[in-house]
């Protein structure tokens, strides 16, 4: 995890109504590559992602990003597990972040169309986003997240409800983004997907950090009993 200045998470904690949800976590993530956050349901994956993105109020601790801007949202985008559709056309959904930046409508729509082609979303541009299937919706959300070329892309179980074909399409896009240098942090409970994608793995359980390591090493020989059991497919208490 050393080398280039990484993403430093210091004593990050989230409590709601006195009940600890996450942490305190302390770890440093690499500045590049694709990190998978793993763990059973309720382990805090979503909370960690949202905390990294600035969507959760921290009860303690802090996150320090390598570019040091102090505003973690400056060049980040988050893809939610259930894609959030705006009640407008597919094109306008994807173009919306550009419109926020003041890009003129025609240009924004043109770039949206190009982005849609990149993620494999064909032909649906003028139709309302509501008519898309589950896989198409997630591709649209991904296109919308990528259109401002974020430095960091966070994804919360993006393929949880998708079939194999859509999952493959999305993983292809992620590969391309990583190759371009986008920092990707992905939460998933799909072990096979984690194996396919992970450069690094963060393993959580009950809101605590159990293990952290390079992908290949983690899957070959996990160090913690929880991770070992989890990779074997066992249910954790």
């Amino acid at each position, binding site marked *: 995890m050393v080398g280039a200045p990484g993403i430093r998470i210091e004593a990050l904690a989230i409590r709601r109504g006195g009940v600890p949800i996450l942490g305190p976590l302390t770890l440093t993530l690499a500045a590049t590559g694709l990190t998978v956050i793993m763990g059973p349901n309720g382990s805090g994956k979503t909370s960690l992602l949202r905390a990294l993105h600035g969507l959760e109020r921290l009860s303690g601790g802090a996150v320090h990003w390598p570019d040091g801007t102090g505003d973690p949202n400056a060049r980040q985008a988050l893809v939610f597990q259930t894609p959030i559709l705006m*009640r407008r056309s597919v094109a306008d959904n994807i173009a*919306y972040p550009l419109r926020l930046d003041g890009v003129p409508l025609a240009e924004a729509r043109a770039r949206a169309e190009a982005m849609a082609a990149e993620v494999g979303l064909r032909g649906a541009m003028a139709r309302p986003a509501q008519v898309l299937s589950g896989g198409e919706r997630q591709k649209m959300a991904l296109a919308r997240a990528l259109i401002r070329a974020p430095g960091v892309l966070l994804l919360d179980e993006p393929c949880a409800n998708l079939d194999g074909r859509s999952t493959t399409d999305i993983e292809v896009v992620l590969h391309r983004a990583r190759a371009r240098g986008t920092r990707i942090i992905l939460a998933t409970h799909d072990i096979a997907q984690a194996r396919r994608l992970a450069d690094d793995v963060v393993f959580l359980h009950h809101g605590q950090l159990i293990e952290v390591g390079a992908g290949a090493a983690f899957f070959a020989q996990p160090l913690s009993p929880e991770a070992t059991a989890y990779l074997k497919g066992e249910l954790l208490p």
Partner: protein
Amino acid sequence: MPLEPAATGRRRDRGMGRAAMNEILQGLAQAAQLLAGLDADLIEITLLSLRVSVTATLVSALIALPLGAWLAVSRFRARRVVIVVLNALMGLPPVVVGLVVYVIFSRAGPLGVLGLLFTPTAMVIAQVIIVAPIIASIAHQTIRDLWADYHDLLISLNATRAQRIKALLWDGRRALITAALAGFGRAIGEVGAIMVVGGNIDHATRALTTAIALETGKGDFGMALALGFILIALAVAVNLAVHLLSRTERSSRW
């Protein structure tokens, strides 16, 4: 004046029943004539009603839509109080609103110098007070639901408060237009407030509803029924518009 011979008991009742039926039929016939012939009074009254209620709805929407949206996305300590007050204002009996406006704009009252009592402007003011809370409340509920959907996305995308309100108002426009139409429906059928502050002056402040009240009270059912048909037609048109709007919601073509 020659007196009619007194009818006895049952025969008299049936006679009176038939007479009442004739009244109504006569009234209907008269109404048909007035409508078909585009009676000048009819048109004048209808135009005044539309002028007052459309203006009141537009002014109310201008105030209430942004207010409702802003309330939905803002967090401040008095927010709950404001919402409670808004809902309470919705329950204001229109005639009481009329009374308060009357007292304020009477020459003997605080804003009497404006000389607005018994003018269409006073009618608009009264209707704005009645209608704006309705539109604001519906707008607030609609936008709040939409905000619940959009919340994480808009914050994730770093949208400013103004940008959020703009996105919510635009994406929620059909529901907001429906809210405005609901406000218009309330305004066009309102009679208590505009009777009190307008004075039902012939050719000046006589609207559909107050004219119906007047004609019915005089026993002139022909004109009253004709006016009533127009009012019903307007109400149906409004409801049709709402219906068509919610259908386009599904196809989202605009």
